[in-house]
């Protein structure tokens, strides 16, 4: 039987506020344990939460970024359960009335296909602390520094059909929150965390299959691996005639497997109810519009503009638009070479990205500056150098060997455009390869590639391939 995968994602985005969601303690990452946990974060007796306005602003910003509906009235609710990293015995979250209702993100796959992923809701909640399981004489240590750090949980519709789509969605959301400057979205530090709801169903079936929730996936790569593992596991279970158990599963990246944490029967009864310490959050259009006015150009808008203004194909436009640094680099380069947007995009997604990745650099720190790349492309277009030679020049630029023209001159990379010089070389080659000349004349026109290769070898790539081809055609047909 052929199966279809259905995926919905729940992403926890840590908001980049200075202070906690409900207290005035700092949110800095990496502080000594429990030095940033104040009486409120510790759930001491008698203390009360007071909500951080900036967290509300950031959540609204996200809501606008996903084209969601901002609820004029939203309510904090208590989610009750006992766990040592949850000091109050409840987490303040939003349940029936989240701050953002609905919304969507457009994702673009490698092949350029666009897909719209629905977003059910985005709500504000406080983070829990951390349990440290290293051995404290067989005990667990609790650090509550992270307790009450603001999070927005973005819940998608079950609209994704493959791990690839899930990763594309995550990356799009990741870029968005960074564009909006509401989160550093650092996955290693846990400020962008993902749980995946995964199910499979026979292709053609409209009812959803029983799903499992995979927790603890902390990189894009693991999201893909965890989902693929889980899909395969579920298909095996079904093919064996068994049923999927609705449960929470934990992804173990070392073993690349998911394993059961707890089943639905063991699931906690969270006893949600409106937090009596916190009145409803009331937001008006004035508040929303003021935030709307501060929104930067969003990746989606940038994507549209790159396609229209620069005539970039969807894939290139999307890749550039979704990376703040790359997008800026691109437009800076275009400013130096107005009509070469497409070549610039190709160079950026090819050589530039490859070098950046190879040396593990930030785009901003890359030694080839926008004006360099623009000049390099100009030199290809005015036939000073060939595309192939340009790669040599790029490498030299990367190694900071000088400016473009300097490198071309110093290395003698200028293209040979003088006909007589090329003709001379070609004549020699024709003379030395009678067998191949014969083959050409008896109809094997493909052999011309061999001659071009010979010419390029002799000129060390400095001849213009088109020019060489033209001359060869004439000479061989003589």
């Amino acid at each position: 039987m052929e199966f279809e995968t259905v995926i919905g994602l729940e992403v926890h985005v840590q908001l980049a506020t200075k202070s906690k969601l409900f207290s005035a303690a700092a949110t800095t990452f990496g502080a000594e344990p429990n030095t940033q946990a104040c009486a409120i974060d510790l759930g001491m007796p008698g203390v009360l939460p007071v909500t951080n306005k900036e967290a509300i602003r950031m959540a609204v910003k996200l809501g606008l970024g996903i084209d969601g509906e901002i609820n004029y009235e939203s309510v904090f609710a208590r989610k009750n359960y006992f766990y040592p990293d949850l000091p109050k015995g409840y987490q303040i979250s939003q349940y029936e009335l989240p701050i953002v209702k609905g919304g969507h993100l457009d994702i673009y796959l490698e092949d350029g296909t666009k897909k719209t992923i629905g977003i059910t809701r985005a709500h504000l909640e406080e983070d829990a602390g951390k349990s440290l399981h290293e051995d404290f004489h067989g005990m667990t240590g609790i650090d509550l520094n992270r307790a009450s750090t603001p999070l927005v949980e973005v819940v998608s519709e079950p609209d994704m059909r493959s791990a690839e789509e899930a990763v594309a969605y995550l990356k799009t959301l990741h870029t968005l929150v960074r564009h909006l400057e509401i989160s550093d979205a650092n996955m290693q530090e846990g400020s962008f965390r993902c749980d995946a709801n995964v199910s499979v169903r026979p292709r053609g079936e409209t009812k959803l299959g029983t799903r499992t929730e995979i927790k603890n996936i902390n990189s894009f790569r693991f999201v893909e691996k965890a989902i693929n593992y889980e899909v395969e596991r579920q298909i095996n279970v079904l093919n064996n005639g068994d049923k999927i158990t609705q449960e929470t599963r934990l992804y173990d990246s070392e073993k690349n497997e998911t394993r059961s944490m707890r089943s639905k029967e063991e699931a906690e009864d969270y006893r949600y109810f409106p937090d009596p310490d916190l009145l409803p959050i009331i937001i008006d259009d004035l508040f929303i519009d003021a935030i709307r006015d501060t929104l930067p150009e969003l990746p989606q808008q940038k994507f549209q503009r790159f396609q229209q203004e620069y005539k970039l194909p969807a894939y290139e436009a999307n890749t550039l638009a979704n990376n703040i640094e790359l997008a800026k680099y691109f437009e800076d380069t275009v400013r130096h070479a107005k009509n070469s947007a497409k070549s610039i995009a190709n160079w950026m997604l090819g050589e530039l990205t490859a070098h950046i990745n190879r040396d593990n650099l930030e785009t901003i720190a890359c030694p080839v500056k926008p004006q360099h790349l623009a000049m390099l492309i100009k030199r290809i277009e005015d036939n000073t150098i060939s595309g192939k030679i340009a790669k040599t020049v790029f490498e030299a630029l990367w190694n900071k060997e000088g400016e473009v023209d300097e490198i071309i001159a110093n290395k003698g990379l200028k293209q040979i455009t003088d006909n007589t010089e090329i003709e001379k070389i070609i004549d020699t080659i024709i003379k030395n390869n009678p067998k191949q000349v014969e083959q050409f004349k008896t109809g094997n026109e493909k052999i011309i590639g061999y001659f071009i290769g010979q010419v390029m070898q002799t000129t060390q790539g400095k001849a213009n391939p088109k020019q060489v081809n033209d001359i060869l055609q004439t000479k061989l047909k003589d």
Partner: protein
Amino acid sequence: MTTLSEQDIRKIAHLARLQIPKDELKVHGENLTKILNFVEAINTVDTSDIKPMAHPQNLAQRLREDEVIETNQRELFQKLAPLTEAGLYLVPKVINNTEEE
């Protein structure tokens, strides 16, 4: 009429993380049953059109500016703690896998 069995009490007590000695389950069951029957009176009125009231005030929440005011008071707070080490609160080993809620 609602009647809570010893089994119900056990379940509720577990949810609330309260140890109830076996010989007290019965009397707790009886008391809770009495209380639940006392509060049943709320069902004598139709409230289908009534908006629930969570707060005595019909007001919006006041918000705080994003400022760090709190300072490190770990030493003071941990003086109150039954068991700490290296600045951490200690609890019996959590067997459940690392959970991110």
